[in-house]
């Protein structure tokens, strides 16, 4: 087996085991740690797909930021008490059956479609993802290429995303701060 494929399967295994752990583990803290494992596996897969900047953002934002948010929330809420409660819904069995069926039927179709598309459109040269031409000068590097695209072609979405994040931040602070009176 060639090295790239070996690493793909290794990181895919890490990602899927982490994802299954999130769903299966009873304690939220264990779920959170498995989620971290899954995030890091996905970051490694991004490197294999020659998306280095996205991999770095994945580690910083997901494995860094979002993970810390989850861990703080788990510390904040009292999960010890829930140990005795049932942790699965009554619909667990039909949901598992549905998931299995979905995976087999729709997944098979989607993978077949991807295979035929890959046969029609040959894989591009990875260098195309790491070069950009600025004012007639070729600039190397995936980060530079994505950065130029982000600021040149997608400037308005970028600004909207910044406003979105500001609104989300204010909303999170307001929701977290306000003391609501109990109504039960």
């Amino acid at each position, binding site marked *: 087996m060639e090295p*790239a*494929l070996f690493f793909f399967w290794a990181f*895919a295994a890490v*990602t*899927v085991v982490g*994802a299954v752990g*999130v*769903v299966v583990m009873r304690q*939220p803290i264990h779920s959170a740690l498995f989620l971290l494992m*899954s995030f890091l596996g*996905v970051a490694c*897969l*991004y490197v*294999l*797909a020659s*998306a280095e*900047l*996205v991999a770095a*953002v*994945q580690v910083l*934002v*997901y494995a860094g930021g*979002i993970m810390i*948010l*989850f861990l703080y*929330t788990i510390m*904040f809420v*009292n*999960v010890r008490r829930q140990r005795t409660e*049932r*942790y*699965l*819904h009554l619909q667990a069995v039909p*949901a*598992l059956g*549905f*998931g299995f069926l979905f*995976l087999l039927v*729709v*997944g098979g179709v*989607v*993978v077949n479609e*991807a*295979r035929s*598309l890959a046969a029609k459109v040959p*894989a*591009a040269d*990875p260098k*195309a*993802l790491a070069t950009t031409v600025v004012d007639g000068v070729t600039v190397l590097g995936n980060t530079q*290429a*994505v950065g130029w*695209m982000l600021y040149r072609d*997608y400037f308005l979405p970028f600004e909207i995303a910044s406003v*979105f994040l500001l609104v989300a931040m204010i*909303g*999170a602070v307001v*929701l977290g701060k306000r003391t*609501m009176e109990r*109504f039960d």
Partner: protein
Amino acid sequence: MITLAHFVGLSFVLFTIGVVGVLVRRNLLTVLMSIELMLNAVNINLVAFSRQLGDLTGQVFTIFVIAVAAGEAAIGLAIIISLYRLKSSVNLDDAAEMKG
């Protein structure tokens, strides 16, 4: 050689695990984590197609999706904390007032 089908298949498996997680779990925190798994599956797809087509747009969109996921996690966890203050529980079944 890693093909497009490898990435798409993996992303599909991850997405299905996320869907099953949302349907199966009672703990709101784990449900939110499953949603993050689904968003990750979408990101893998975008990056895989960007790699196949040699077009950076997919990677730019992945960064936007990550930004939206960060906002979603922040708001979702704030809502969970509010719910916990209100009910002293993060169980989905304890938040069923609007059940018809």
